């Protein structure tokens, strides 16, 4: 499938900001499930950006702006061709050792009630992961089918405070991913957070999305979207990975400002 993506972000900083530094994870990688046909990132100062790979293998742009006037606009766009691999990515090179993704972070803590029964499971790791995805779906319910731009930064804590409200909102995709990752890591299975795009079709709404990937010694990395109870299909485009949502954020800045973003994702 060929997928056309246009991801626009707007950063609003306090007036009078002297120096802004932006860390962009806005370059999708080519890999077993996708090939980047064309891609560009536009922002004032991109020509002078620092470019490098981060600890998780993401391509990073470091952009700085002096005395920015008004909002800072970022646009990433391009065409990605995807293949359906049933979520299986294998063991591509150029990535950190999978065991790194057993590290527990504050965002990826799961209650033992979620994974306890899989502790001494006789099933294969793959079966355990599928069962875990099902269990998270039962625990959190089905998410609303709106797109998730602002939900990317939601934390487990926010989800909790939301669910204690009168009309509890269903947790956003990032929370499903965090729970899945936390539970997998508690079972000694490396798991990581993926930030990416989804084209329209069954399942999640088109736009920015988040899911998880877990490592199987035989098959390598496999995607799991617990929010929609499926393994990524050819409609999914991987953008960035990390230990949790924080390390895979498309845009991180100093000083911190308000970020609004929207991704228009279409099959072409």
């Amino acid at each position, binding site marked *: 499938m060929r997928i056309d993506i246009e991801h626009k972000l707007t950063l609003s900083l306090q007036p009078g900001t002297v*120096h802004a*530094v932006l*860390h962009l994870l806005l370059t999708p990688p080519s890999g077993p499930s996708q090939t980047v046909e064309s891609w560009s990132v536009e922002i004032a100062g991109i020509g*002078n*950006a*620092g*470019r*490098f*790979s*981060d*600890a*998780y*293998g993401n391509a*990073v742009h*470091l952009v*700085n702006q002096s005395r920015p006037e008004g909002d800072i606009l970022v646009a990433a766009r391009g065409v990605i061709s995807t293949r359906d691999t049933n979520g299986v990515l294998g063991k591509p090179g150029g990535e*950190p*050792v999978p*065991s*790194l993704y*057993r*590290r*527990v972070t504050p965002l990826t803590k799961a209650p033992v009630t979620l994974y306890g029964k899989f502790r001494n499971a006789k099933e294969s790791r793959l079966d355990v992961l599928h069962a875990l995805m099902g269990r998270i779906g039962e625990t959190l319910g089905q998410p609303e089918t709106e797109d998730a731009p602002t939900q990317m930064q939601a934390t487990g804590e926010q989800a909790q405070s939301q669910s204690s409200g009168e009309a509890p909102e269903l947790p956003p995709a990032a929370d499903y991913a965090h729970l899945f990752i936390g539970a997998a890591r508690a079972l000694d299975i490396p798991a990581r957070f993926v930030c990416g795009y989804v084209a329209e079709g069954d399942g999640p709404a088109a736009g920015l999305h988040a899911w998880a990937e877990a490592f199987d010694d035989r098959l390598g990395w496999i995607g799991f979207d617990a929010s929609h109870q499926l393994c990524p299909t050819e409609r999914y485009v991987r953008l960035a990975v990390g*230990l949790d949502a924080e*390390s895979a954020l498309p845009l*991180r*800045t*100093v000083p*911190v400002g308000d970020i609004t973003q929207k991704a228009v994702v279409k099959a072409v």
Partner: protein
Amino acid sequence: MADKTPFDEMYNPDGSVREPYRALAGWLAEQPDKALALMQTDAEAIFRRLGITFAVYGSDEGTEKVIPFDVIPRIIAANEWRRLSKGIEQRVKALNAFLYDIYHRQEILKAGRVPEKLILNNAAFCPQMMGLNPAKGVYAHIIGVDIVRVGPDDFYVLEDNLRTPSGVSYMLEDREAMMLLAPDLFHRSKVAPVENYPENLRRTLESVAPDTVRGSPNIAVLTPGIHNSAYFEHSFLADQMGAQLCEGPDLFVDGGKVYMRTTTGPEQVDVIYRRIEDDYLDPLTFRPDSMLGVPGLFDAYRAGNVTLVNAPGTGIADDKAVYTYVPDIIEFYLGEKALLQNVPTYNCTDEDQRAWVLENIADLVVKEVHGSGGYGMMVGPTATKAQHAEFRKKIEARPDNYIVQPTLDLSTCPTHISGDVAPRHVDLRPYVLIGDEVRITPGGLTRVALKKGSLVVNSSQGGGTKDTWVLED
């Protein structure tokens, strides 16, 4: 360690003088009454003049203290030093190899020689460092190894300091003061120089500049600022090396490179000897509330445009729980047995060891795994019964949070105590520089517990320092 008389570095048990101290003993015998007391007064004046003071946290502004300096040097024989420095070199090489490994393929974890959880879920492990290749493969360029001596041939490593070890300015000033106070003493012995430390530091820093740097690299010392207790040392070292001393706001990142604001415009910086902790280095990557760091600095480092000294994440190698594995680490990477011993350490997560520890706590030293500077620590023999009970409870509640060691009878050295000379306990922190080669300054900083019988040498707890001599053949 069961022997109650500590090893004295100057006198044998029969009262005869040990070889390395012969010249000193002769000199001491010749000194008229009150000479040492006069020297002590002069020393104080010298240190005030040199400006070596340290700020005491929590006291009124402007309260600057001089760390007590003892006028009797501590002496290490050439052959003793050769052994020690070989052991130190082995250790720092292995620790750097360990850092490279855990931030790349993690072979030592795969081999099960160090438990994976101990590393991966350790607060001192820095995941952002994964896959980064520091210049020359060196992570910890400046290491202070804390060593204690308990016998003629028995040295133990108490702690490896791979973050931002301090105190080297005291080593340098102690020597300078000693040469002013007793120039004649230096004529009687051949003492290895320490004055070239700043030059060696500079060479080390230059040798790890990014490959892209042409010509002489631009070096900066990054300090948290004047309120830091080691600010004097930061400015002293910058001055001695001819490097710029700067604070976070003096630096900025542009196009993935680091620049210093100067009166003649921005100047690119190639190597940063940073004395700011990892967490505060860069609010974009680490603590977002840091006001001390430089936004984008870590990214510039990852992009290969600047070298940070020491690298972030080196603390994983001096973690107290990792310490117990250092002999295994040396074997794993170098295929050699450790030349320097570790202090035997009890693992409280083991039930049998824990039971033994709880029973014998009055004789033991308990340290919090992530504590430092003598905080969160209990020395059994000098602690009260209530403290013993408190730490028993703490260990039972969180056995993985503590390491327990026997109380070591640190060696003693003759020390000037109000007109008299008496033995006092000492330790030793040699300073190691690692760049294109390993450079170990002969000797290091000797800290001395001035209170009779005390084993606590920390300056915050009444410890002083001594000039440390390594004799040359």
